[in-house]
Every structure is written in C-alpha cells, then in structure tokens.
C-alpha cells in the first residue's frame, strides 16, 4: 500500500457568470499522503473552498471541473459516475462545513444525523453506530457524551456543534476529511477547544485532512504542510515549519506581515477638554433578559477605546444603547457634556449626526438597491442639507478620502463591490455626517487579513486627519493591539477590566482577561500544544 492518498494534477475549475465560463482555479497540483494535514490558505476568492470540494470530486452549483485529474487512492474521481462518488463521500472522504449550525438539520437529533452515514453506507448497524457515536463524542471531549447526542442542534453551543460535526465526519473512519474554515465563526476561547479536538482525533485515526482557513495562526497549529493560494493560482507550497520560518514568495511574506501593524499612539489630549462620551451605570436588555449590567465608561476625545469580549458579552448591545436603538432601563449617556435622549427618535438630527456607527457586515449594512451615490448622498442631504452639485462634489471628496476612484465607483451597486470596498463605503457613509464619534462594530472581522489591515490603516489615517474618536468593538485581540488606546474587557454584560492598552496587556490579569489573551492563536506552531499543556487539558 502506497502512502499517497490523494493526487490532484493540473486541476482547472470554472464558474459560470454573465453567461460565460470564467476560471476559478487555473491548474493546481495537490498531493496528500495518508495521515497528513494540508493547510490551504488564501484570501476569499482565492479558490480554497472550491479546491477543497474538488478533492471530493464535487463542485458547487454553476461550477465545473474543466481539466486535470483527481486520483483518490488510485481511483479517478473526475468524471466518475454519481454512484461511485456516492459510495466514497461520507464513507472515505468527509466534509466539515464552516457553519455547523447551518449544516446540521435542525429537525433531527445529533445522534440520528451521526448514524445516517454509517447505516446508509452499510458500515455498521444503527445500534452499533449509536454506541460508536458516544465513543467518539467522548474522544472529542464533548460534555456529557452519553446524552448529548440526544439533543437537537439548537440545544448545544456553536463550539460543541462544530465538534459534533467533526465526530460525524469521523463516523465511517474516512481516509480524508476536508475542513472548510471550521473555527472561523467561533470565539477565540471556543476555537481552542475545537482546534485541539480536531487535531487529536485526526492524529488518532491517522486521517488525512485538508484544512481550509484564512487564519495563519490557526493553520500554523494544525498543518504539516501549507499551500498558499492567490486568485486560483498556487503561490507557495512547503512544510509548515519551513514556510512559517522562512516564507519565499512576496505574497506569503505580506500575509505574514499583516499582524505587525501598530499605529503610533495618539498624542495626549489637550488640557481642559472633558471626555467626549460618558456612560453612567447603564443597564439594558431584551424582554426580561439583562444583557448590560451597570456599565460605566468614559471615552476621551480623540482616542480609540477597544471593547473586547466573547459573543454574548453585551458588546454590540452597548453600541445599540449608545446609538439610541435600544433605550436603556437605567443609567444615562452624555455626549460632550450634553445628555443624550435614550431613544434615537427623540434625538435631534444635529445631535445624532455626531454619533455614527459602522456595522460588522457591510453586506447587510448597504441597501442592495441603492447606488453608492445614494448611499453616501443621503446623510449629506439629511444632516447637512446639501443638494445638487454641492452634494455630488462632496460624495466625490468622500470617495477619494476612502481611497476609491469616484469616476469608477459613484454609480455602482453594492453587489459590484468587493468586501473591503463595501466596508469602505460604509465608512464614507458614516463620515458623510461629519461625526465626532464613530462606533466600529467588528468592522474587520468579516474581512481577509490583508483587506482588514487596509481598513485599520484607513481608520487610523482618518482619525488623525479629522480628530475622530472611536469605540472599537472586537473579539480579535490582534486588532486591539494595533489600534487601541484604552481597552475595556467585558464578560456577561459587565466590565471585567478597563485601562490603557499597556495596563491591560501587562500581567497580572484578572482570570477572564488571562483566558482571553492566552487564547489568541500565535504563529508559533507549538503554541497550541504548549498552551494545552499549561492549562492541563492533555
């Protein structure tokens, strides 16, 4: 038996758009030995997922494999009949999707979904499969492995679901598993557990894996070998440690360098200026659930305050309270010494225009039916009363400011922009109101690292030019390191710790800050092993 499991040669994949076939993957070779983990990295649109799926002989709708060969354990998959592929998929090649919450059928219990594969493929009977599921749930360190399978997907957390999905992929003990960004949607603290679980179980059964991600630090923990893709072409392919230590290509180097952006600290504020925003004892929630519990914050003029915490810690709710979308139950918010009415409906446009917000997902924050001209033009008209030529001139100015060419972009629809460009347009819309204070709610978390860095640099430049004050909501501590002056750590609707960036990042930390800080993956390939050893989880 040879060690070579998967051999893809000169793979070409095309996608259909605008009534013609356009290349997505331009001839990539990929080989994988048994038990080897290959990390596929690249920006969105690089073709990582497409290539990963092609390893199963599958393409998404509207795509086709137009050239090359895919040999899995000596068997050609390209052009193989569906019946052959069906016997392989799930049994010998499995797939773990990015969002386990969307990939599980909400109407069936976890264990029933687990059993489906083995029973259909005739690997084992139902009772045996159920016993096996419990066994794997235990190995993958799910809590209460005997019972958890009898819950429905909505009854377990996101991290647990992702682990259950991995267990499910393992059910037939496949030779190859394709992991498509399995931890991208998870918090750093949860991510650790999932990464450790995946790594252990894959090693135990000597399963080969293709691990797709855009997070370099994650791939550094998981992969034996890394392949870097850029717009359908291979950039570099090398053993993980070698590539991490000594990247060869310029593009790989630029990916590595992204995390090194540090902005210069803001000059200390002038004497005699009071804080820009004061939040005093704010308590708020939805229905009977308290989400924010007695929050006190002051944000100095011209500074950047980062708010960090896991999902569910109340970060975004705080933003909604400040914006007046969710009137607080108790407490007061003052902007520049003026109390802000709790509901945005009672705020005058003159007051509201100083406080703007940029959303996490630029996709949903832009009306798909409005052209860029209307998106940016509306706040100009609404807050500043600009019309006609003056308005158009200002739109062009703003587009130039966010580094988009006005002639090219002014009449585009949001669907004709890339993710980073959309986020820039959202920034321009916020700037159009000429605000003093901008809340940035996870503005970079949906973006690739290179693009995200561009947005951070842009925000930094704008802050210096227009003396803006930012409140930066994020769960990514790398972003905090690069952009914040002061940091607030939130957990369960309460402020755990607050202070300047140096204070927060210098030990000793309160336990929660410690957990959060230590969970951020580092580029060191031994980081996960070391961390788990320190935490005593092995």
């Amino acid at each position, binding site marked *: 038996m040879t060690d070579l499991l998967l051999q893809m040669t000169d793979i070409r994949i095309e996608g259909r758009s605008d009534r013609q076939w356009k290349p997505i993957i331009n001839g990539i070779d990929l080989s994988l030995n048994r038990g080897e983990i290959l990390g596929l990295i690249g920006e969105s649109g690089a073709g990582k997922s497409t290539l990963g799926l092609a390893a199963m002989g599958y393409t998404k709708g509207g795509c086709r494999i137009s050239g090359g060969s895919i040999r899995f354990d000596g068997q050609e998959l390209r052009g193989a009949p569906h019946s052959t592929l069906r016997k392989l998929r799930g049994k010998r090649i499995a797939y773990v999707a990015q969002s386990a919450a969307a990939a599980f059928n909400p109407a069936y219990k976890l264990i029933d979904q687990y059993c489906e594969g083995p029973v259909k493929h005739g690997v084992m009977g139902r009772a045996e499969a159920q016993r096996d599921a419990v066994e794997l749930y235990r190995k993958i360190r799910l809590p209460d492995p005997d019972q958890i399978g009898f819950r429905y997907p909505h009854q377990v957390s996101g991290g647990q679901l992702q682990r259950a999905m991995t267990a499910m992929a393992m059910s037939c003990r496949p030779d190859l598993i394709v992991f498509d960004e399995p931890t991208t949607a998870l918090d750093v603290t949860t991510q650790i557990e999932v990464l450790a679980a995946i790594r252990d179980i894959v090693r135990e059964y000597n399963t080969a894996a293709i691990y797709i991600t855009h997070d370099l630090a994650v791939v550094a923990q998981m992969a034996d070998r890394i392949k870097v893709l850029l717009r359908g072409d291979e950039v570099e392919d090398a053993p993980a440690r070698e590539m991490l230590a000594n990247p060869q290509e310029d593009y790989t180097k630029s990916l590595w360098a992204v995390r090194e952006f540090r902005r210069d600290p803001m000059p200390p504020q002038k004497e005699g200026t009071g804080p820009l925003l004061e939040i005093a004892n704010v308590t708020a929630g939805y229905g009977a659930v308290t989400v924010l519990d007695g929050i006190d914050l002051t944000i100095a003029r011209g500074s950047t305050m980062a708010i960090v915490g896991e999902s569910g810690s109340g970060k975004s709710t705080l933003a909604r309270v400040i914006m007046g979308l969710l009137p607080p139950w108790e407490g007061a918010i003052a902007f520049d010494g003026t109390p802000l009415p709790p509901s945005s409906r009672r705020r005058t446009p003159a007051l509201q225009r100083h406080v703007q917000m940029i959303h996490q997902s630029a996709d*949903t*924050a832009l009306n798909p039916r*409005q052209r860029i001209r209307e998106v940016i033009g509306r706040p100009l008209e609404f807050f500043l009363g600009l019309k006609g030529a003056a308005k158009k001139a200002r739109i062009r100015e703003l587009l130039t400011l966010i580094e988009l060419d006005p002639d090219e972009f002014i009449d585009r629809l949001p669907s004709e922009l890339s993710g980073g460009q959309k986020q820039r347009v959202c920034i321009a819309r916020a700037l159009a109101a000429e605000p003093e204070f901008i809340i940035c709610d996870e503005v970079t978390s949906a973006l690739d690292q290179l693009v995200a860095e561009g947005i951070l640099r842009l925000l930094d430049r704008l802050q210096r030019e227009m003396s803006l004050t930012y409140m930066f909501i994020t769960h990514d501590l790398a972003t905090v390191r690069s952009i914040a002056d002061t940091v607030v750590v939130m957990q369960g609707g309460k402020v755990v710790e607050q202070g300047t960036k140096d204070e927060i990042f210098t030990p000793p930390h309160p336990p929660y800050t410690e957990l959060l800080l230590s969970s951020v993956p580092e580029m060191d390939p031994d980081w996960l092993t070391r961390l788990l050893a320190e935490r005593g989880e092995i």
Partner: protein
Amino acid sequence: MTDLFHSLRDAPVSAWIGIVIVGIYTILAIGAPVLAPYPEAASIGSQYQPWAAPHYLGTDALGRDVMSRLIYGARNTVGIALLTTALAFAMGATLGLLAATLGGWFDAVSARVVDVLMAIPALIFALLILTITGTSVLALVLVIAVLDSTRVYRLSRAVAQGILTMDYIEVARMRGEGLWWLIRKEVLPNAAAPMIAEFGLRFCFVFLFISALSFLGLGIQPPTADWGGMVRESAKLIGFANFATWQTATFGLAPLLPAGAIALLTIGVNLIVDWVLHLSSGLRE
C-alpha cells in the same frame, strides 16, 4: 432599464412563451372594437350556427358572434381582473408594509382583522356580500379586492419583516429617517421582486374567481361578454354535440373556447411569474 433588457435577453423559452401569450391577450383586449368583426352584444344571425364564414367560431343561443364575444371577453374579464388586483395590492401592500414597519398595536390589530377575513371561505363570503349588495361591477371589484388584499397583506408583511432586520434599515433608523422614507426607499425596492411575482399569481386567482362567480351568475352580468359567463351559457350544449361530422362536433367545443381562453392566459401569466420568481430568488442555475 438596461437591467430589464439584459434579463429579457436571458429569459428562458418558457418565459418567452408566457410573454407572447400575455402580449396577444393584451392586444386583443385593447384593440377589441377594431379587431372584433361584430359588436359585443348584438344579435347578428340565427342561433347556434356551426363554425363557418362569416362566423368562424359560430354563434351562440341569441345569435351573437362567438369570436367577437371572446375578444370582448378578454377586455372585460382581464380588465376587471387587472383593476381588482391593482386595488388589492394597493390596499394589502400599504397595510402590510405599514404593519411590518410600525409594529406594535397597529401590527397586532391589522393582523387579527386579516386573520378573521381569511378564516371565511372566499367564495361563500363573496356570494353572501354580492347577494346583499347586488351584482354591479363596482361591488364585484371591491369585494374581490378586499378578499384578495388579505393575501397580499400577509406576503408584503412577511417580506418586509425580513428586510427590516437588515443592518441598512438600522442605519436609516439611526439616522432618524421617517416612516415614509423607510418604506419607500429602503423596504419597497427590495420587496419589489417577490411582490411582482405575487401580482402575477394574484391576477390569475382574481381572474379565475371572477370567472367562477360569472359561471355562478353573480359575476359580470349579461349582455356584457365575459368568459366565465360564456362557459355557463354554452355548457349545456355539450349534451347536444354530435361527433359524427366536423360541423356538428363544434357544439361540443363551444364551452371549451372560453374555458381554454381562461386556461391559456393563466398558463401564460404563470410562466412569466415563474421566471420573475427565479430572478428574484437570485438562483443562477
């Protein structure tokens, strides 16, 4: 506008068939006085003539030219159905969008009123009201429009609720935009595609409903030509059809002509609706 031409060029054959069918009906309806060889309600020959020149589709029980009545029927049935659907949409969509955007008591009250209306079988409700009010065209249009607006209300409210959870709505609310702006500029453009598709479907239902009422004698009243009524008048002829010769067999076909006209238009509109739904769903396969 260029988008529209672009989509039209890409339209599948089925959509084109639908467009052609609806196009022909439209031409017939608008040009009825010019295209129809004889007047709508005049008795111009002996009764029950077979299909031969100059009455290519024969004459009916009162000696009226069937082809002319079919052409005028397009105008009456389709015209009234179109008017009714438009009215149903004006009422239903306005209320539905308002209910979704405003929420609160307005949403609760209007939703319950609509539930009550929907709980009563439409045909029985229409028969009851039309018996009380009498069978004028105005009453017919109003009753069917009110009944159908409940379905439009449900749809527009559901679609708008989905749109209202989007961040761009939050951005507009944070800006302090008024209700009118929210509905007109933020919600409506995004709700347009499913609403247009629903308009097509609703039109079919209204048009079948009117035909059904006419068949029962409570719809469009004679001597105005309409297809539902024509089916009723000629239905009894099926029994007298003699399929020995081509000429005598036409009696059996007489009720099928208006019924076929109804069916063909329904199919045509549905073919277009399928295509619009496909476009709006964003599927590219």
